[in-house]
């Protein structure tokens, strides 16, 4: 039992990276995704295709590859590489935010497509500018439809944070793996699993609450 407690204590130290990466990614990638969604659905064909290509690139390549690229690859870029030196955690954040923004862009776009065109028209005849209509009328309705996929994506994100163990960030899985190797005992993996389960449980509860709140 004391062994389990000891494992838990050491992993608690790693949870700051897991939760930190999760929080930063969610907080930044959602607004970026929302902006990308509006550009993607906007009238400007060029910008729309640029975002389309971006989404294709980010969703079409492994997150692990992107993680390696931003952590180890950036500095080798000609000319600009020397200015792009980041800490490992920072580069992990950049990779995650850019990757998840692409997914959120598509989630929000789905939400936007689900809003009836009559809503845009009603807002227009009432005198709303496009901007006002989007903020007051369209986005709240988009969010309702987007919540279940956002919930899904957030749970995936919690688990994806484990990937950064590959670039040597000392998050939960990093501790677990070292403990298993060191002690020749599988318990650490189970403790790590419990951590992830607890986090995803909390998230599920949070999104359930939000979905109730948005049930108009």
């Amino acid at each position, binding site marked *: 039992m004391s062994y389990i407690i000891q494992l838990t204590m050491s992993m608690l130290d790693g949870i700051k990276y897991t939760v930190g990466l999760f929080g930063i990614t969610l907080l930044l990638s959602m607004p970026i995704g929302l902006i990308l969604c509006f550009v993607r659905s906007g009238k400007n064909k060029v910008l729309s295709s640029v975002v389309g290509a971006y989404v294709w690139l980010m969703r079409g390549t492994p997150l692990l590859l992107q993680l390696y690229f931003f952590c180890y690859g950036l500095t080798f870029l000609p000319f600009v590489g020397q200015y792009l030196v980041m800490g490992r955690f920072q580069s992990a954040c950049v990779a995650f935010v850019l990757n998840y923004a692409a997914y959120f862009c598509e989630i929000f776009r789905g939400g936007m497509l689900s809003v*009836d065109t*009559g*809503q845009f*028209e*009603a*807002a*227009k*005849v*009432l*005198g*709303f*500018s496009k901007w*006002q209509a989007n903020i*007051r*009328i369209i986005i*709240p*309705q988009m969010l*309702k439809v987007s919540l279940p996929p956002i919930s899904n994506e957030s749970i995936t994100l919690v688990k994806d944070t484990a990937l950064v163990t590959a670039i040597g960030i000392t998050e939960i899985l990093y501790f677990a793996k070292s403990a298993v190797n060191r002690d020749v005992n599988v318990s650490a993996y189970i403790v790590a699993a419990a951590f992830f389960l607890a986090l995803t449980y909390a998230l599920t509860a949070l999104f359930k609450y939000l979905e109730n709140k*948005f049930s*108009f």
Partner: protein
Amino acid sequence: MEMIRVNNLKKSFAGLNVLNDVSFSVNKGETVAVIGHSGSGKSTMLRCLINLERADGGDIIIEGEYLARGGEYPPAKESRRICAKMGMVFQNFNLFPHISVLNNLIYAPVYVMNEKPVSAKERAAQVLKTVGLSDKISAMPRELSGGQKQRVAIARQLMTNPDVLLFDEPTSSLDPQLTGEVLAVMKDLSKKRMTMVVVTHEMGFARSAADRVIFMGDGRIVEEGKPEDIFTNPKDERVKQFIGSIII
């Protein structure tokens, strides 16, 4: 006074001519009913008036100002200002489902016209009373029947104090029992000399409440006149057939 003047309005969708040289005008305080077969261009014409569709050619003049001139439009801000004098009621109500009836009514006055929320709320209570829905002020749209939704939609548009109200088949998605309550509100507005253009299949309303009836067919105005003349003594063969085929 002329509230709306339309000259030679043209509109086509993917090569199909929906409107061919439509010209008419609407005077202040007048109720004009637009009738005709489905696909005759009635709704498209109405949507052009408030800039939900862009005309390809012709003029649209709202209270002396050009919304479209030879198919050319002013910048978005300018066209929004011109269209703000009008309101529109849709077939599918298009209430905002995520906010209460009260908020549906006060959003445009508060956020678009910068009215104080307190005064907007007071007006909302009054306007809801005129459509007979005082008790629904804090209801959500999903809790209302179709007829109630449409009356809220009318109230919402009245909150912006429009000079002209456009109705796009306002009772077409309602049960016959619910149609009556909406028509009653519209007749009441018509009596108060609100300027109205009503695209409708409700011949009873066109006959009893309209000052003038416009019959459209194939993107043109086929016949136009007083309701008695159109309904009892139509000149055009197509109008005769149409009137003969319906029961009033």
